[in-house]
């Protein structure tokens, strides 16, 4: 264990805590003990205090206690002549340093200056933590690098960061060396830094490194579900990070103010000691002392003297990261960090699709003999034949073959094309099917990017990600306008076929439904359960939309809900769905029947497209939609009915539905389905006519559509019954509903 490191760390911790105490005293003097001490947009108070002390800091006065605890953790500075075991003291000093740094950083939000200034981002809110942090946990991002200091040249900085981006490693930046910070070097080279490019500059001072650690702390609290409050929880959080969050610190450059044996300031060592508590090792490009034995960190703790060109691969080894680098043979960099970038018109070399030209992408399954593995063809002009600033047609046709591949997988793989292409640096891709928009930037073109490279990207990625299903991939890129047009027609035909097939999907075909809690801000106890045959009642979300939304944001408004054991197939009740809604509706709803209107029907939020209500006199139901302003046979207008039905109330005899549900075979199937339908406004009937007629024909009720009354035929229940009798509506011979 290096005495030099321990001494510097403990000394640095003393200095940092003293600094924090002074800053706190000044802040209390000017703002008072009761002034709020909070980070913006977080539910975790000050995460470092919460983690290590179980303390929920809210006011400046609370920080006095935090710093008292920090002081208790400060070790004695080891004297020159005495050699004592002081690993524990060093680690504690690391914790004290983090407490002090969290204090100093939050004070910036209280008394200023605002940490989010210029290129610096300051504290990361919980929203971004959830959106991006999940990638650390599910493996999309193998880990994060916390870069402290700067490289010798700006070009080295760019090279280093590109290596990290290629491995999809998130990059946090804090601190400087002799006044220059890594983030400043990147900014000088025009590199875009924000959460979309995975480059996050926290602050210029070493204290802002605490934001990387309060992020790590919150990852364990959110994704690990570990609630702080005692020593065991604190240890669990640290272990979570050691075992699941593959982070490391890159200490770059030598501080001129530090001694020759140290090369880095006390404060940097102190902060590093804080990071080591989490199992995050330090890799340095200068000859600082090393700590090679394992223990707190999985492998070495401090490794030094590593050349800038090798530092990323060495760091990956030391931290024990497993990286799958898909080396794609294209002249631009490639990685998840480039997915969000937009190429502006001024930076664009050429573009395809959007409002400017025709473009489409399609993936098809072919017989194995028809696919030549790895073949890429550009049919039509290549980039060298294209004029800068112009738009050209583009058809991307991907043919795949595989013994285990199935036609149903076509759209699953096709949906990834967007992600695959956008991950190339300098390439913009938006949309899907025949509404894509692609841009090649001037920088990418200058590096030698060709249209054929889209083929290289797709072949590499598909073979990498779908190796079990796909044996051969070939790509044809059509830029010839006539040939492209013919194929686009073919593609559109295929899309329609797929839509029809999915349109035919039944509830029985799937093992899980999706929930939607999008309107819980308006109706806190309402949750929609969206099935393939029953869409969300606002009309916006189908089962597929929920599925896509869940893929985009797993912590968003849509979650998968397992069906579990079927309790009642006719009424549509499932065991696990019931348990789910009990929780999500905050105990409001214990069970519901998806296909019934009378028994435990589904609740509604307040913005349904239509309301279905029973008309007891007619032994059936009527439907009224939001656009109909007139009176209905139940004696209430839409707005009055809406008041009865909304807000998460379960009202037997009334349900809110989406328009598309009217033509669903599951439409109040529990009570007999369409045969119960007696009345609908004229305009609504027109809207659903095509779909509903088709369905009625399928079940042998072709005349039923015309037997459904409208406001022209009846407005009162008596008149309605008269009408139904006159057309011999099947509802009259059915069992009583009530």
């Amino acid at each position: 264990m290096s005495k030099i490191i321990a001494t510097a760390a403990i000394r640095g911790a003393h200095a940092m805590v003293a600094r924090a105490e002074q800053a706190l005293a000044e802040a209390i003097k000017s703002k008072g003990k009761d002034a709020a001490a909070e980070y913006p947009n977080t539910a975790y108070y000050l995460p470092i205090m919460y983690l290590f002390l179980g303390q929920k800091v809210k006011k400046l006065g609370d920080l006095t206690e935090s710093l008292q605890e920090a002081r208790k953790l400060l070790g004695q500075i080891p004297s020159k002549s005495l050699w004592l075991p002081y690993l524990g003291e060093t680690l504690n000093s690391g914790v004290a340093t983090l407490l002090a740094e969290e204090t100093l950083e939050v004070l910036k939000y209280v008394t200023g200056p605002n940490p989010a200034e210029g290129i610096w981002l300051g504290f990361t809110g919980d929203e971004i933590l959830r959106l991006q942090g999940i990638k650390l946990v599910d493996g999309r991002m193998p880990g994060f690098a916390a870069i402290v200091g700067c490289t010798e040249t700006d070009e080295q900085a760019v090279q280093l960061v590109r290596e990290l981006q290629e491995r999809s490693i998130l990059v946090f930046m804090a601190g400087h060396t002799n006044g220059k910070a890594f983030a400043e070097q990147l900014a000088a080279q025009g590199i875009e830094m924000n959460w979309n490019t995975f480059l996050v500059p926290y602050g210029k001072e070493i204290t802002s490194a605490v934001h990387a650690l309060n992020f790590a702390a919150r990852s364990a609290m959110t994704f690990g579900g570990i609630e702080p409050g005692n020593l065991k929880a604190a240890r669990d959080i640290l272990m979570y990070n050691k075992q699941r969050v593959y982070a490391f610190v890159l200490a770059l450059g030598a501080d001129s103010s530090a001694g020759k044996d140290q090369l880095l300031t006390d404060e940097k060592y102190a902060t590093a000691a804080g990071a080591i508590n989490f199992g995050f090792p330090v890799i340095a490009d200068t000859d600082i002392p090393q700590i090679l034995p394992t223990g707190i960190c999985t492998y070495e703790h401090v490794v030094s003297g590593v050349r800038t060109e090798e530092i990323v691969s060495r760091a990956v080894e030391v931290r024990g990261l497993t990286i799958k680098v898909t080396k794609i043979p294209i002249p631009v960099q490639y990685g998840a960090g480039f997915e969000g970038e937009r190429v502006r018109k001024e930076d664009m070399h050429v573009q395809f699709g959007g409002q400017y030209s025709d473009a489409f992408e399609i993936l098809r399954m072919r017989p194995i003999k028809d696919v030549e593995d790895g073949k890429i063809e550009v049919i039509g002009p290549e980039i060298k034949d294209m004029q800068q600033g112009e738009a050209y047609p583009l058809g991307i046709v991907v043919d795949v073959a595989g013994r285990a591949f199935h036609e149903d997988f076509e759209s699953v793989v096709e949906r990834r094309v967007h992600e695959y292409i956008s991950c190339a640096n300098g390439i913009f891709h938006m949309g899907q099917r025949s509404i894509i928009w692609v841009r090649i930037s001037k920088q990418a073109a200058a590096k030698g990017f060709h249209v054929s490279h889209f083929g290289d990207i797709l072949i590499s990625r598909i073979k990498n990600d779908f190796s079990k299903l796909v044996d051969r991939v070939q790509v044809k890129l059509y830029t010839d306008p006539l040939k492209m047009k013919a194929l686009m027609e073919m593609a559109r035909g295929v899309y329609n076929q797929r839509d029809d097939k999915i349109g035919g999907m039944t509830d029985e075909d799937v093992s899980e439904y999706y929930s939607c809690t999008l309107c819980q801000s308006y109706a806190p106890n309402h949750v929609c359960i969206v099935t393939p045959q029953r869409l969300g009642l606002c009309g916006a979300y189908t089962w597929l939309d929920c599925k896509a939304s869940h893929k985009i944001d797993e912590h968003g408004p849509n979650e998968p809900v397992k069906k579990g054991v079927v309790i009642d197939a006719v009424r549509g009740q499932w065991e696990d769905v019931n348990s789910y809604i009990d929780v999500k509706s905050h105990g409001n709803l214990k069970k519901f029947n998806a296909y019934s209107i009378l028994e435990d029907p589904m609740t509604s939020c307040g913005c349904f497209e239509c309301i279905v209500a029973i008309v007891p006199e007619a032994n059936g139901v009527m439907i009224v939609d939001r656009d109909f302003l007139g009176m209905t046979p139940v004696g209430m207008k839409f707005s009055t009915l809406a008041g009865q039905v909304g807000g998460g109330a379960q009202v037997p005899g009334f349900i809110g539905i989406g328009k598309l549900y009217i033509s669903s075979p599951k439409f109040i199937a529990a009570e007999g389905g369409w045969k119960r339908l007696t009345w609908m406004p004229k305009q609504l009937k027109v809207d659903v006519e095509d779909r509903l007629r088709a369905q009625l024909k399928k079940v042998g009720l072709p005349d039923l559509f015309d037997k459904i009354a409208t406001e022209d035929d009846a407005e009162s229940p008596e008149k309605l019954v008269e009408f139904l009798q006159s057309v011999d509506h099947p509802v009259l011979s059915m069992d009583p509903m009530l």
Partner: protein
Amino acid sequence: MAKTIAVAGKGGTGKSTVAALVIQRLRAKGFGPILAIDADPDANLGNLLGMRNIKTIGDLREDVLKEVKNFPAGMNKASYVEAGLHQIIAEADGFDFIAMGRSEGAGCYCYMNSLIRKFHEDLTPSYAWVVFDNEAGLEHISRRTTSKIDVLLIVVNDNPISLETAGKIVQLTDSLPGSAEKRYILANMVREDRLPYVEKWAQENKIDYAGHLPRTSAIEDAIMNGASLLSLKHPPTRDRISAILEKIGSVA
């Protein structure tokens, strides 16, 4: 990370003019790329920037809601909307422009608004500056379809009611903590002798005073002639706007 300046105020105080002049100055100083957002359903900023016939987000919203039932079953609505939102961005030299368009009509907007919110979050990091032209109700801020604003510039003119509106805006942002980092009053076309009154009002309401733009015939002529304010060459205005930009600390 994008720095956001939002311009708000009673209708007719000259917000869009101020927004256009701010964009002109930022661009001239090389602070780009800039994203200009016209969040006023009355949509004037586009004209002042020389952009015509722009499709708005409101148009897209209505299109999607109308087509919802005809949407192809296998197509993911969210990508369709996302693609549509990207296509709405009008591109020009040194800046891009989006018009929000009409506010919500009848119907269910939870879904669309959640997509628009995400779009804003994803889009703004690609720009160094975002300049927002708002209507007085600041609907987009209260509905959280936009994210945090760094500088809120409230424009007032000679009409005392514009100060009342400014007061309401201050109250609204007070009630939404974290919505606006710093707030300023800008006096536009206010008579010289009334300026001290405006400054005093600012002091009493604890809002900083950013400066003033007097009635300027060069600007009025440009607007009358339907010319883009981006090509306005008027050194006194240029200097005044620069001073205001420095005052609001936005010049990095």
